[in-house]
């Protein structure tokens, strides 16, 4: 029997990036906000303290900061002809957990999507003809434009202290930036990251080849910085323990390093950790939420009433909560009907290794977002006509900090163990770098999320089921871009090189990226989207759903920059429109 608690104005489910942004914006607007986080409290001190945090085995391999799959996982199959089975240990992607969520262990790679991406279907139709897009490819225009989001991209970048060189300010292309970028109002808040030797080699080679290299925009802050909220951030020391680790310097932007100090002092904000939300409650009409139900660490069930509910629990969990709570109709690929779970997408990734006998790279030096990029084969920056696929990749050399349990790329044909292997790795570890290609995944009719019929979590609720495989379109795109990466490697004249194409079928075993998107997509049409352009549920207007679940398909660039921008965009709609007149912000 659930204990009913005192109501709050807004309850936030999950306390990562979007939870922190929404908590701050709603408390500033005068609301009493309660954040419920299923994991434990974490803060820079003591949880991310060095040297403890510089432990590859514990954090990068044993996933100390991530969700414990033994308690809750998802099931996976490539297609409806397979039976979905639990992901029994993480591989392909690493869901976060605890205060800060994945915002603690991300790399800090901070992008904006290209303007054309926001109207991808219209754009491809205009340039290549309407039949260019295959029928099974369910890509959609976003219900928001780049220009509308630009001030919110800016806002999140200034919160994070993003370091970079703008490529286009008010329509004027800037020397040293990415000329393919959308226009922005002003420069980044902090100067771009330093260049490692391998980044410099890539920059020189790509420039010689006629491409347009730029330093990756990075929320690993490059100098001491006080953000517009008045929170002091540290300066990155290129320690090489970024992705999968917390930052001891408060230099990597996270909820902890950008917002938490303010929120913890705010009397209008309360954070309850180890509080696992199992359901969003609806009234008898099923069009209004009355709050949420959660279970504490002792197994006591609570009903938390609230005027509005913000789902901020990462795209996958948000989709599952909507399904478990009966918000919106679950997508069925047979009928094509249902809005929750559709357009699940992921990321294509592949690599080329370059090995040089006479060069030394010190690959352990680096930061999560210390990289050199080209966008020449990204978005629609190149002619897709003769190629026949939709989408593209960014191609890069990353100096993320290459730690030896995970990074020992040897040339093809080397032994795997023994004396010969030791000689090989002793020689090549320091003489190798990787040219990586990270690409888009288009939405497909057959790739979706729903609830599993066979497996449950410890609370007795069905696990999320993921049905996903790489489409021919995306495999073709990935091969093309991998070949372009190989061209760049060849131009640098390495002594040896290896090409690692991404081949199907999609496997959840090797790590790729944690850029899972879709499932709660935003759109203009309530029959083919779960939320409207303000991330408000079409079906239950006092529920808003954050995260990359909103993306109708996944562009190539990393999602967090857009996730943060959309959180500010939604917060703005809530505080300036919704609170004045609660109800549907977009007629359905």
């Amino acid at each position: 029997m659930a204990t009913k608690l005192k109501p709050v104005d807004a309850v936030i489910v999950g306390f990562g990036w979007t939870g922190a942004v929404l908590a701050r914006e709603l408390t500033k607007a005068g609301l009493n906000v309660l954040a419920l986080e299923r994991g434990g409290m974490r803060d820079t001190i003591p949880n991310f303290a060095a040297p403890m945090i510089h432990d590859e085995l514990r954090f990068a391999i044993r996933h100390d900061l991530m969700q414990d799959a033994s308690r809750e996982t998802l099931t996976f199959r490539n297609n409806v002809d397979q039976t979905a089975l639990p992901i029994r240990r993480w591989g392909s992607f690493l869901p976060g957990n605890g205060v800060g969520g994945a915002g603690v262990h991300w790399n800090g790679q901070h992008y904006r999507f290209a303007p054309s991406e926001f109207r991808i279907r219209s754009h491809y139709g205009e340039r290549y003809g309407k039949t260019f897009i295959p029928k099974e490819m369910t890509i959609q225009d976003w219900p928001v434009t780049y220009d509308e989001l630009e001030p919110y991209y800016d806002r999140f970048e200034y919160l994070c202290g993003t370091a970079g060189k703008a490529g286009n300010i008010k329509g004027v292309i800037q020397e040293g930036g990415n000329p393919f970028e959308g226009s922005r109002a002003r420069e980044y808040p902090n100067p771009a990251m330093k260049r490692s030797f391998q980044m410099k080699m890539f920059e020189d080679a790509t420039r010689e080849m006629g491409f347009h290299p730029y330093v990756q925009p990075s929320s690993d802050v490059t100098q001491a910085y006080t953000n517009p909220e008045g929170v002091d951030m540290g300066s990155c020391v290129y320690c090489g323990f970024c992705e999968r680790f917390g930052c001891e310097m408060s230099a990597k932007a996270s909820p902890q390093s950008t917002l938490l100090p303010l929120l913890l002092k705010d009397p209008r904000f309360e954070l309850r950790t180890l509080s696992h939300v199992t359901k969003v409650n609806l009234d008898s009409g099923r069009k209004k939420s009355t709050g949420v139900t959660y279970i504490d660490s002792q197994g006591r069930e609570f009903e938390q009433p609230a005027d509005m509910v913000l789902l901020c629990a990462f795209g996958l969990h948000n989709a599952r909560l909507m399904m478990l709570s009966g918000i919106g109709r679950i997508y069925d690929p047979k009928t094509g009907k249902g809005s929750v779970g559709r357009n699940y997408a992921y990321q294509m990734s592949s690599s080329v290794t370059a090995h040089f006998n006479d060069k030394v790279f010190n690959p352990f030096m680096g930061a999560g977002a210390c990289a050199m990029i080209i966008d020449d084969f990204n978005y629609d920056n190149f002619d897709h006509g003769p190629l026949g696929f939709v989408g593209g990749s960014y191609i890069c050399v990353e100096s993320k900090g290459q730690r030896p349990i995970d990074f020992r790329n040897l040339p093809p044909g080397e032994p795997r163990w023994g004396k010969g292997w030791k000689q090989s790795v002793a020689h090549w570890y320091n003489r190798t770098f990787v040219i990586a290609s990270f690409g888009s995944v288009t939405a497909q009719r057959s790739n979706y999320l729903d609830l599993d019929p066979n497996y449950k979590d410890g609370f007795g609720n069905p696990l999320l089921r993921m049905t996903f495989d790489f489409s021919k379109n995306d495999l073709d795109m990935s091969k093309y871009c991998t070949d372009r990466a190989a061209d760049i490697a060849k131009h640098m004249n390495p002594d040896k090189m290896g090409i690692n194409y991404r081949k199907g079928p999609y496997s959840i075993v090797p790590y790729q990226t944690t850029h899972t998107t879709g499932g709660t997509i935003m759109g203009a049409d309530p029959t083919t989207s779960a939320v409207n352009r303000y991330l408000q549920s079409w079906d239950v207007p006092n529920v808003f759903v954050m995260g990359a679940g909103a993306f109708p398909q996944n562009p190539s660039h990393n999602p967090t920059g857009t996730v943060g921008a959309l959180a500010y965009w939604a917060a703005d709609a809530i505080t300036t429109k919704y609170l004045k007149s609660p109800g549907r912000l977009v007629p359905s």
Partner: protein
Amino acid sequence: MTIKRREFVVGAGVIGVVGVTGGSVAPQPASAEHAMQMGAKQTAHASSPAQTATSAPPEKRAYTFLNPDEATWVEAAVNHMIPADDLTASGVDLGIAYFIDQQLAGGFGQGGKMFMQGPWHPGVPQQGWQVRLSPAEAYRAAIPAINAYCTKAYGKDFSSITESQRDEVLNDLGTGKADSGPLPAGLFLDLLYQNVMEGFFSDPAYGGNRDKAAWKMIGYSGATGNFVDLIETTYNKPYTEPSQSIADLS
């Protein structure tokens, strides 16, 4: 070469404490030697005594998971994958067998963060680990099966066959030609290989990578974490500072 049972040598010191057994940790070689040792030249790998000898009389440690037959098997596999040479001491001398023992006794081995609820189905390779066994149980099931396979194929158990036969068995475990008992093809070799690499390259706090030998071999800085002044000033220059463990920095 037969490996005597329980003739293992493990890393100096308990977790977090350096040099507890009374000897001190080997002094770091001087910079120039160290720079050479980092592999700046292709063939000139320094074989300074400080690098390959045990630093102090090593503390003897008991295994708390592996039984004697398993210990023999694991030590043979570890020493086969990481043999003694002028780059490092043997894998067993570097503590890798002890590392594996400790991992199997602890959370990882017991399947702590793995979803171990049924129903159970073999699945397809894309669905990953679907065996109804923890990693520790997988070792326990595979080792006797592999020994039986070796006896049948070569007349002796895994630790007693020749080096080239052992190499063949490991490769055949990868393809599924060699029997690993109740496990699907390739699973056990992947697991073993992953654990050996972890034992070789992880922080010495976990029992392997004794004296940071693996890190020194490849020129990895270890748990050190401040390169803001070096990343742009060491183009094509080997890093010459000593590798540091978490204990060194604590």
